[in-house]
């Protein structure tokens, strides 16, 4: 049995990204911004991490559909 390392990477980044982005959306905005120099870093970076995770998952899924030998 072989498996594609992009799968766990994608899942973990998607999960962490969504969790952190949600904190950025729902958290105390003033406190968050004050902490990170006027930037809602939770929202921005959470979204970036989730996006990266999603791309990894898509790549893994495409490779599987093509029936490629998994890269791992």
């Amino acid at each position, binding site marked *: *049995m*072989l*498996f594609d*390392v992009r799968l*766990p*990477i994608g*899942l*973990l*980044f998607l*999960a*962490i990204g969504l*969790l*952190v982005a949600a*904190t*950025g959306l729902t*958290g105390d905005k003033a*406190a*968050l911004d004050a*902490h*990170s*120099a006027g*930037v809602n*870093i*939770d929202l*921005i*970076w*959470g979204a970036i*991490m989730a996006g*990266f995770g999603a791309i990894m998952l898509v790549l893994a899924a495409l490779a599987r559909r093509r029936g490629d030998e998994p*890269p*791992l």
Partner: protein
Amino acid sequence: MHLGAVDWGVISLYLVFVLGIGIVSSRMAKSGNDFFLAGRAIPAWVCGLAFISANLGAQEVIGMGASGAKYGIATAHFYWIGAIPAMVFIGVFMMPFYYGSKARSAPEYLRMRFDEKTRGLNAVTFALMTILNSGISMYALAKLIQTLHVFDAPFAALHLPQAWIFHGAILTAATVVLVYIYMGGLRGAIYNEVLQFFLIVAGFAPLVWLGLRQVGGWEGLQTTLGPSYTHAWAGMAHASTNKLGVDWFGLTMGLGFVLSFGYWCTDFLVVQRAMAANSMSAARRTPLIAAGVKMFIPFIVILPGLIAIALTSAPDRAGHAPPPVAAGHIVQHEPGVIPIKIDSATGKPMLDARGRPQLDYDLATPNLLLRYFPTGMVGVGLTALLASFMSGMAGGVTAFNTVFTYDIYQAYIRRKASDQHYLMVGRLATLFGIVASVAAAYLCSQFNNINDFLQLVMAFVNAPVFATFLLGMFWKRTTGHGAFIGLAAGTLTAAIHHGMTLPMDDLPGLKGGWIAVTHTYASEMAQNFWIAIWAWSACFITTIVVSLATKPKPEAELAGLVYSLTPKIMPQKGAWYMNPVLLGVIMLTITVALNLLFR
């Protein structure tokens, strides 16, 4: 700083995935080849990322930040003069012998090329140093976590004494690494290293982004800190005109050649990742792909240090001393990101030779992280720190269990046993290695100076090794006696040189000069580089002289092990990025460009 539920959530998710990868890999670890060499079935890009990650331990992340705060962008020499040329060299020139010889470890290559005693010496010193290194790094992590006070609240809530944070940090990290290597072997370690690599980047890149915004970008750093911080090559003509206290010759020869080639081209922790690759071509491309990423690592590990020092003015405000930076104007922020170093015994600030309070540079990156990350991102940042620690430790442990099993156990204890037997020994060696690392970590916490002492001994042993591999691979006349005596002579020379020189402002003792002080260096770094140069030269010359006086191995036995007796690898047909030589040239060109850009 208190951790929120989200932060705990992020850290827990990470731990679950890391353990999960260990469990999945355990289904593929059925033979010694699977466990120690990941079945030699890993593609180049995965090996390349694992290669970087295994060398991006917490000590490096923290240490490079500290060095960035202390010396500025000149710290990048460790990458742009140090690591990259050596990584290109191993990929283009040395990997054909490591991978092609089918040796299972670097010491085993030495046995095939030279003899048993050279292998034994290398295997035993490597095994010992790897364990001590992982202990030192474990100690540093636990100490850091204690200092950051991030776990104070949960420990207080559980009515546990604060001192247990240290134990808790060590035991948790050690147990997790133990589980995934015990189960998945090298494959578990490599999969996790790739995951950890992305997490380290995800944790530190936003820190640099926020920090640079705050200090007005790179231009802001330049105006705040002055040229000595933002130009890597400024004043390198002479040791007294730059912060490192090293001249260009000591830097390029000591760091760029001896120390870097010694580490990146011979250390099994490094070589093992490439040996796991699925083909000769992939093995050669592993360090080259890694070099392509590695050259940009300074931007996420060194820049936080520069940003932190730009935001620090603590000594000035405390009224004890002038600002830490002589040139340029320091922006005042409260409180300083880098605190003053406190002597744990007296509780008073530690002073340098001129009576000024010293800054605790090791806290530059972690404090910056706590300062700029709100709850949520703090979890991501701490996860990155944890990931870097685990990847570094796993790198050491996988290299240790392989060298122990094949080069010590199979060589000296039980020569002929089944593959399953050695697989079991490998698992037990993993357990033993981690327990021994924990013990070493406690040793460090008991004796203040032991850390410095151990690193010193490692430097003595490491400095000459590259001469042995270089001569072994490229001069067929080199003999086993030559290699062995050369190594011993190199280590001895290193110790003697240390005993007779001393960095400026230091007292004879652990810092050198314990025989007699015949020369004073402008800095400890300069002393380190010159010790390496002397040790390497002594090993190189001794090996040649002894080799000429002893009988070489018959040429037939050296095919595949020595350059002139190995058929050249024909360039493969295929895309340009499959060609190691072309990749190497590209990597070196970009590195030269980076040096010019930050000159």
